[in-house]
């Protein structure tokens, strides 16, 4: 069993708070005003609310079982953690070739154009719950164990 984030479309109101909390969580300052206004390189939200009114839902890395990004990665930055089932990204190794973006079926990988690397969900390592899940006002994001 591995833990994954599940999106519940019928609960999502498209508010975009998950993006805000994700961006702040992945900023250096952890301050919403600085994170949005002044911090460089610009912090990036790794979750995107996809909208097609009235439908909306959040997308972030789904940690695929046979993750295409891991196989396609040109630099070895993308790896699959066999124990946790998580797809991890090593920013130091990343060459910003965008190959993972080309093959991610969810369109869940973001470009950090300033940093010339990609940015993806890391499930907020070290915290009980990812920031997007913890701060969703309508429980449209759930973090739970699923079968591999």
């Amino acid at each position, binding site marked *: 069993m591995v833990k994954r984030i*599940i*999106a*519940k*479309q019928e609960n999502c109101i498209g508010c975009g708070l998950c993006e805000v909390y994700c961006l702040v969580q992945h900023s250096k300052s952890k301050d919403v005003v600085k994170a949005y206004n002044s911090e460089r390189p610009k912090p990036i939200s790794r979750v*995107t609310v*996809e*909208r*097609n009114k009235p*439908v*909306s*839902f959040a*997308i972030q890395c*789904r940690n695929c079982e046979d993750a*295409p990004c891991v*196989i*396609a*990665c*040109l*630099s*070895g930055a993308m790896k699959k953690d066999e124990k946790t089932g998580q797809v991890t990204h090593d920013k*130091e*190794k990343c*060459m*910003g*070739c*965008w*190959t993972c*973006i*080309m*093959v*991610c*079926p*969810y*369109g869940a*990988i*973001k*470009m950090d*154009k300033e940093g*010339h690397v990609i940015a993806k969900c890391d499930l907020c390592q070290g915290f009980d719950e990812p920031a997007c899940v913890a701060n969703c006002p309508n429980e449209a994001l759930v973090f739970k164990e699923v079968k591999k």
Partner: protein
Amino acid sequence: MAKYVIVGASAAGIGAVEAIREVDPSGSIAVISDETCTHYSRPMISDFVSGKADAKKMDCRNNEFWKANNVEVLMGKKATALNLTEKTVQLDSGEKVAYEKLLLATGGKPFVPITEGSDKDGVFTFTTISDAQRIAAKIEATYAKTAIVVGGGLIGISVTEALLKRGLKVTMVELQDKILSLLLDAKGSDIMEAVIRKAGVNVITGQSVQKILGKPGNDSAVGGVLLTKGDQVPCDLVIMAIGVVPRTELVLGGAVKINRGIVVDNMMQTNVADVYASGDVAEAYDFIINQNRTLPLWPLAILEGRVAGYNMAGKKTTYCGGTNMSSLKYFDVPIVSIGLANPKEDPTLEVLVKQDLENNVYKKLVLRNNIIVGIILVNCIERAGILFYLLKNTVNVKKFKKQLISEDFSWATLPTGMQRKMSVVQ
């Protein structure tokens, strides 16, 4: 003697080792490589030349990779002959390595057209880390200031950007009328050519180098090139970056069937029992053109190597196929090109285009019978993977064609049934 012998220690070899170890944790593996540096990222050699990546960053696994997988590595040794009856590989060091299962992952070698003067000091190819190291050393030693890059494809553009970043003045010479012609159509190519020119590169198309000239007073060193239409361009370096051809020497004239590359079935087996081939040397299945071909691309080499590895270790696995697909990061213009991106006139194909040329944004989809068969994305690649998913799974897009090229294209604009099938939502 090893149960599994792999010739070549790059992408296909790495993929095979990882797959074999998933199935067979203890069977002996020997990897033979004529390089002294292995499991490095070949696509990163341009970052090495530009100074952005060092050897540590280029290691695409980790320095314990062979040890962790209990692999015997025969580095700096060249496989010179095969004995398919005796099941051995002959090395230039005199050793003979016996195998039960053999993988030929010898890769590609740079294609260099016969050109007068190509033996001069200052002419390089651009495929391996040693090429990159030699170029970097040459620039440092001679204060080279100008370079000619022969080839306006993927390799050419990568080395052009790297040399520019090192401060050299670069001229790119491309035989075709358009650069990146295997990846982009005329419009996409024009966008990129303008960007490259703006960055300071001199781009010459429709010509090639007919002769490499010597330096005045030192004819053995590169001093310039003579182009096919008669112009002379002075330079300190010439980089031959046209492309690669399968490195098939080891099996030439033998029983292993070769077409352009080594012919394999969908399990990566050659026509000879217990001999497999993967990566740039192999002719594997392309699901868009529905036939086998050589496709020298890193992700496909890893995937093909994995399929070979599983099958060698006894886990029957079929290759799902690949196609011509690349993403480009050069000159800060992200590009994705997949499949029939630049097809010839064909009434059975439908083309959808969306462009914002002022901002260098260009999106083109090629459809056949309402199925995506080709993709070009310039400066709008973030959801490329969704389009690739539709292409690869031959999804009929008739009902949502318009959405595909709209700016707000995402999973939210695709049918609910598909969202649920892919568990995008619950």
